[in-house]
C-alpha cells in the first residue's frame, strides 16, 4: 500500500470553539490509483490533501507513505518527502509569471533526484511548441497543462490535484482530465483529486466523500470509465 491514513485527526481553534477539520480519517490508496475526494465546502477535502502532501500536519493518527509515518518526520525530513514524492496541481495554476514555460517546469526538475525530460513532459501535455511563452500569453487550460507538466516533471509518486478543473470551462476541463488519465497510465502515478464535481469521480479507482471532516463514503469504483466518458 502506497498511502495509508490511520485515525487521522486535525482541528482548528476558532475564537472559542475547537472545530474539527478532520475527524478519525482512515483511508488507503495503492500505487497507480486515482482517488477522488468529494464533499461540500468546508468538509476538510483540502486539509486532507495537504496532510497527505506533507504541507500540513495532523494532530494525531498516522499518515504512512511507503511505510514511513509523516507525523514522525521533522521539518527537514518532511521537506525531503515533498521534494521526492509529491507533485501538486493548483486550481489557479500558480505558475511563476516572470519565468517562461520551460523555466516553470525547471522549478520542479531543479530539485528532483530523478526528473523526467522537460521536452518529453511538455510534449506529453501538448505544450512543447509553447515552451518559450510566458504564462500570461497562455489560456487557462494551457496554463493548467503547464501546471500538470510541472508537477509530473519531477517524477513524483503521488500527484495531488486541488480542484484542477475548477477554473476551467467544460471543454478545457475535459482535456485536463484526459491528461491526468494519461499521466496516471504512463507514469503509474497515484493521483488524488479534490473536487466539487461529482462527475469526475467516475474516472477514479476510489471515491471518498467527506462531510464535516468525516469520511461518509469510501468506496472502490468498480465502474470506472475513461476520462473521455466523463460528462456533467
Amino acid at each position: 500500500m502506497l498511502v495509508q491514513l490511520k485515525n487521522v485527526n486535525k482541528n482548528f481553534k476558532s475564537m472559542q470553539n475547537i472545530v474539527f477539520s478532520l475527524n478519525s480519517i482512515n483511508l488507503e490508496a495503492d500505487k497507480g490509483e486515482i482517488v477522488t475526494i468529494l464533499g461540500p465546502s468546508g468538509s476538510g477535502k483540502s486539509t486532507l490533501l495537504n496532510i497527505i502532501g506533507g504541507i500540513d500536519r495532523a494532530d494525531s493518527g498516522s499518515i504512512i507513505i511507503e511505510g514511513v509515518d509523516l507525523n514522525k518526520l521533522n521539518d527537514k525530513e518532511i521537506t525531503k518527502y515533498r521534494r521526492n514524492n509529491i507533485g501538486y496541481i493548483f486550481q489557479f495554476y500558480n505558475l511563476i509569471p516572470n519565468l517562461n514555460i520551460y523555466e516553470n517546469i525547471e522549478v520542479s526538475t531543479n530539485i528532483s533526484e530523478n526528473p523526467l525530460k522537460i521536452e518529453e513532459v511538455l510534449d506529453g501535455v501538448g505544450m512543447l511548441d509553447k515552451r518559450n511563452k510566458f504564462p500570461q500569453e497562455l489560456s487557462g487550460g494551457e496554463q493548467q497543462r503547464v501546471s500538470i507538466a510541472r508537477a509530473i516533471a519531477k517524477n513524483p509518486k503521488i500527484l495531488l490535484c486541488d480542484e484542477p478543473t475548477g477554473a476551467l470551462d467544460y471543454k478545457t476541463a475535459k482535456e485536463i482530465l484526459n491528461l491526468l488519465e494519461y499521466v496516471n497510465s504512463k507514469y503509474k502515478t497515484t493521483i488524488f483529486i479534490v473536487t466539487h464535481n461529482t462527475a469526475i469521480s467516475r474516472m477514479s479507482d476510489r471515491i471518498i466523500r467527506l462531510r464535516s471532516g468525516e469520511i461518509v463514503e469510501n468506496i472502490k469504483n468498480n465502474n470506472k470509465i475513461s476520462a473521455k466518458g466523463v460528462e456533467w
Partner: protein
Amino acid sequence: MVMVLNKKIKRVILSQKAVYIGSIILVMLSSLLYTNFNISMKNVEKNKNLFLKITMIEDAKVITQKPLENISELENKFNVLIDERKQLDVNINSNTVLRIFEKTEKVDISYIVEGKNIESDNDILLDPNFAKANNIKIGDYIELPFGKFIVKGFFSMPDYIYPLKSDTDMMVNYNNFGIAILSKNKINEINKGINYYLIKYKSKDSYKIKDYIAENNFIIFYQDIKDNPRYSFVDAKLMGSTKMGSALPVIILLLTSLLVCIVIWRIIKTEFSQIGTLYALGYTKKEILFHYLSYGNIIALLGGVSGTILGLIFVKPLTSFFISYFNIPLIENLFDIKYIIISLLIPYIFIIPAISFVTLKALRLSPVNLMRGNNEIIKIGILEKKINITKLKFISKFRIREVTRSLPRLFVLIFGITIASMFLLLGFLYKNSIDYLLNQSMNEVYKYEYNYVLKAYEDDNNYGGEEYNLSAFKVENKIESFAVLGIKPDSKMINLTDESGKSISINSVIATRPLSNTLNIKEGDKIIITNKYSNKKYEIKIDKIAEVYTGNNIYMPLSDFNKIMNLNENSFIGIFSSNKLNIDEDKILKFETKKDFEEAFKTILNPLKASFAVISLFAFVISLVVIYIITGISIEENKNNISMFKIFGYTNNEINSLILNTATIPVIVGFLISIPLLIKSMDALFRSFSKGIDFAFPLKLEPLSIVLSFIIMIGIYELSKYLSKKKILNISLSEALKSQRE
C-alpha cells in the same frame, strides 16, 4: 468617508514597518544634511562677512623697496586707508614657528575672541587654535627670544582666517604654526622682520594707488586679497561644503522618492480591487488620491521633522568645527529660518509628486478593470522577452528573470548602491589622493629641502643652492594670479614630468596642471600675461603641461625669464637648496622647508576623519535601507512563489539563495558604476571650487581601497540578506493555497 478609509493606513504601515522606517530614515538623513549644512554654512558665512566688515579687511598688501612717504596724503589722494605692519617669525622650538604681527588700528584690525586686548608692551595676543594645540591659556607667560610676555587674550585676524604658514601650503597645522600680536612699541623695539603696507580701498578708483606706488617707488611684492590663500581658501572650502550640503540631500531625496514610488505602487497593485470597489461605491479620484498621498505625507512629515530637528541640534557643533577650522570668531548665531522651512518642505516636493504619479496611473483604469485586479497590466518586458538565457542553470535563470522583472526597481537598486558606494569610496578617494599628492610633490617634483625668497634681486649667488627667479602675473579677465619661475634648465631641484611620467626638460615654457585647469589652457596655446607689479604685458606660448598638482606656476629657463623681464642675465630672487644656507635674515622675504609642507599635509586628514566616519555611516544606512526595502518588495511579490517552492520541497537555504541572491549582480554593477562616477563628480566639484587655489587634486583610488570598499558593501548586502531571511521563513506553505480561494 475618507477618514474611514484612512483608518487602514496605520495597519498597512504596521504590516510593512521596515519599508516605512527605512523611507523615513532616508528622508531624515536628507533633511538632517540639508538643515545642518546650510544653516551652519550660512551661519559661518554671515559671521565671516560681519567679521571682515568689523575688522576692515585689506584689499591689498604691498611690500616696497623704500618706505612709503606721506601716508595720509596718499590716503586722501586715492581714497584709501593705509596701515603699516611689521611681521617676524620666531622659533618657539625646533618645530614650531610663531608669526608675530604689529597691532594695527585701521586695516586688518585684530578681533578679540576671548580675554582682553593688549594694554602694555609685555602683553601678547595668540591665535586660539595655536594656543589650544600648544596648551597655552590666557594669563600664561610665553617666553620669546626678546622677552617674556603674558597672554592677554585670543584673537582672529581677517587676512589670516586660514592661518597658513606659507602661501603654498594647503592645510593649516596649529601644532607647528601660529600667529600672535604685540604692541607697536614692542615691535619697533625688536626692529626685525619685514615691513609692509595694508591698503583698504574706499572707492572704486582706489586701486590706482598701485600704479602710483609702482611709478614712484619699487614694488617687491603686491597681493590682492583675492590672491591671499589665507583668505580665499575659506570661500573655496565653504563653497565646497555648501555645494555638498545642497546636492547630497537632493540625491538622497530622489532615491527616497523612487523607493517610495515603488513601495506605494506595490501597495496600490495589491489594492486594485479595493480601489475599484471604492470607485464603484462613488469615491472620487481626488479622495482616493488623497488617501494614498497620506502614506507619503507620513514619511515626509516624520522624516522631515526629525531630520530638521536633528540637523538643528548639530548646527552648533558643525558651526564650531568650521569656525575653529578657519579661525573666524562666532560673533553671533545667525540662524536662517528659510532653511528650516525648506528642509521641512523639500521631502513633500519630492515625495508627493512621486506618489501622485503612481496613484494617478492606477486611477486611469476603469473601476471594472481595477476590480478584476487589472490582470492585463502584467506585461512581459522587452528585456524579459529578448534575453536569451536558455543555456544557463535554473538558479541563474530565475535570478536574471527576477532582476529584469521590474526595471524601475532594478534602477533604484543600482542607483541606491551607486550613491552609497560613492559615499563609501569618498574617504578612500580622499586619502589615496592626498597620499599620491604628497608622494608626488615630496619625492618626485620638489627635490629641495629649503626654499628662500629674497627681498631683492641679486646677481651673484654666493650662498650655495640653486638660484631661480620669479614674479607674479595675471591673465586678463581672470582674477587668479600665478607665478612664473625662471629655473635652471639642468635643475636638480625641480623635476617636472608629463602625463606618461617622463621628465620634461626645462628648455621650454611649462605650465602646471592646476594652472592649466584655472586658465583653461592646453599645450600649444598662446596667452598674454600681465606682470602684477609693472603691469607690462607679455605673450608666451605654453609648450608643455606638467603633471604637477601643487603650484599655480609657469616654469621657463632662467635666462629666458631674465631676458623677458629685462633683468640682468644672472639675476635671481630665490634659492632652492638641499641644505640650510647662511643668508642674512634681513635679506629674506620668505623661507620655507619641505618639512613644513609635509607636516601640513600629514594633518590634512585629521579634521576630516570625523566627516568621513559620518559619511561612511550614511553609506551604511543608505545601502542597508535600499537593499532591505528592495529585497523586501521582492519577497512580498514572490510570497506566492516562495510558498509554492516550499510546497514543492525546496529547502529554506535553496529559497534564500534563489530570492535573496538576486540582488548580487545589481549590487556589483552599482558598485562598479560608482567608481568612475565618483571620480568624475569629485573632479567637477574640485574644479568648480579650486579655481584660484594653487593646487589641483589628482584623484586617485588605489585597488586596495576599491577592494576594501567592495568588501564593506558586500558585508552590508549580506547583513540585509540576513535580516530578510526571517521574512522568507515566515511565509507559510498555505500562502500559495490561499490564492486557490481568491
